[in-house]
């Protein structure tokens, strides 16, 4: 839920070898100049599972991004290209699920490019702020067929290990269309 005057809630994954954001970040992980953005440090941009980006959107974030090293200069050689490809695929999946694909993004900035990083995150935050509608579409209503056992609403999800479901203030059920 956007809080007025603060901008949309954004969660960013930042890899250890990309831009050095230590001067831009408060101890709790929020960015000083953009308090609606929280950064989570990961060992490589390629470490990020696409399911975590979806998890963030279903748990209160309005936008998430991954920041890796400049394309061609990943410290681990392939990570930024791989997360780029995975996010492209995830955006297409989101379109089918009626989640706006612009809510996720990949950006690439090197160690000393704090200005570029700040500018890109600000632009992303502003863009997400004016995206329409709920972050994830509301779950489908349960079918009204009378049955002996109650059916779980909104279909079953075929995940081998179900993600933990924290109580969320926004009141969305975590298992939507997956």
């Amino acid at each position, binding site marked *: 839920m956007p809080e007025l005057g603060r901008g949309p*809630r954004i*969660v960013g994954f930042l890899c*250890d070898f990309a831009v050095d954001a230590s001067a831009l970040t408060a101890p*709790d*992980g*929020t960015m000083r100049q953009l308090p609606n953005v*929280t950064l*989570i*440090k*990961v*060992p*490589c941009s*390629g*470490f*990020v*599972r*696409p*399911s*975590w980006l979806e*998890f*963030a959107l279903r*748990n*209160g*974030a309005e936008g998430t991004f991954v920041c890796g090293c*400049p*394309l*061609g*200069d990943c*410290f*681990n*050689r*392939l*990570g930024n290209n*791989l*997360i780029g490809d*995975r996010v492209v695929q995830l955006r297409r999946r989101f379109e089918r699920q009626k989640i706006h694909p612009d809510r996720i993004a990949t950006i*690439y900035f*090197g*160690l*000393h*490019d704090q200005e570029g990083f700040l500018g890109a995150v600000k632009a992303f935050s502003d863009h997400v702020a004016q995206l329409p509608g709920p972050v994830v579409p509301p779950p489908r209503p349960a079918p009204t067929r009378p049955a002996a056992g109650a059916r779980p609403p909104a279909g079953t999800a075929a995940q*081998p*290990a179900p*993600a*933990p479901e*924290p109580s*969320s*203030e926004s009141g969305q059920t975590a298992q939507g269309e997956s």
Partner: protein
Amino acid sequence: MYSRALTRLLDWTLRLDVAINRVYPEDFNPLYYTGGLSNLFLTVLVLSGIFLFLYYIPSFNDAYISVQFITNQVPYGQIVRGVHRYAADGFMIAVLLHFFRNWFTDRFQFSRDEPWISGMMLLLFTGFLGVTGYVLVWDERSQLLVAMTGRTLGAVPWIGGYLQSQWLGSAGVSNLLLPRMLYLHVGLAVLLYILLWWHYVRIRHPKVWPPAVWTLFSLGLIFLLTGLVPAASQPPARPDAVPSSLAVDWLFLLPYVALKVLSPLVLLALAVVITVYGLYIPYQLPETPAALGIRDSGIAQVIDANCTGCELCYYDCPYNAIVMVPSPHPGVTKAAQARKLYAIVLESRCVECGICVGACPFEALELPRLLESDVQQKVVQACRS
């Protein structure tokens, strides 16, 4: 003190990147493709070298004449000779850029040491290739190089005389010299490819070609230089006297310039020290990430119950640290029960980057000290703040 100096060098290197990325789009930045540039020049060298090899005669009387024949009589011979000459310089420059960049950006740590070691040997043998190449022309410079090398080898205590006679092929300079030099030149080129196999063994999808912009630029520069400053021989070698001045190619012949001020033994000792130090670079810093004070997530672990043998982690691991083996037993989840293959992480190659974790759609890989649940907890916390 060393790690502070390294940090400073990393700093300058990456600030240089910011400047270059203002001029060139990121995927055209040449410093990201130094390995590919080296391979480009090596390919040009091998192709032009085969052409030259077809006409070269390794004997005292005929070597110089055969090179002149290539230059003046063979169609396009002068161009191929010039291409070979300038591609060699380009190769050395690209290799040195590759060396310094990978050194200054810490890309040799922990499990990335083998490309470094093989790379040091590649650098060393590249130097030898350049010297033998200059000797093959058998002009005044060649004669001087042979004499200086012989003297330097002869200065080694105890085995100096033996080394010198091995270099020359007999007690003094004789007709056995040039075939030996040709053998060293071509043989070392083959050895380079063997070392390159070792160089690539721990690397998936090695970037062996630079972007088109730089391929065109490098080839264009080589041809332009060939036309503007044609490669030419010095006056032919004289059997009676040894010339005293050397026309220097700084990229390959720097040690010979150093012989003007250093004694041969000192030069050799310096060369050994530098080489040994270079080989020691990956092992100079503490052994473990924890000791270095950087993130220590642990070697990637395969979750047996979930692995379906889909091979996505195998294809994505940048260091070839994951191998697929026939599944020893079925997994637990429905999809894992039907698996034919099973992923195994080679601990000696894993750098704990976690790219395999991001690749796996079945939650069958984790970094022990940075689990999916840890990440999700951080996300939830971030969404609450």
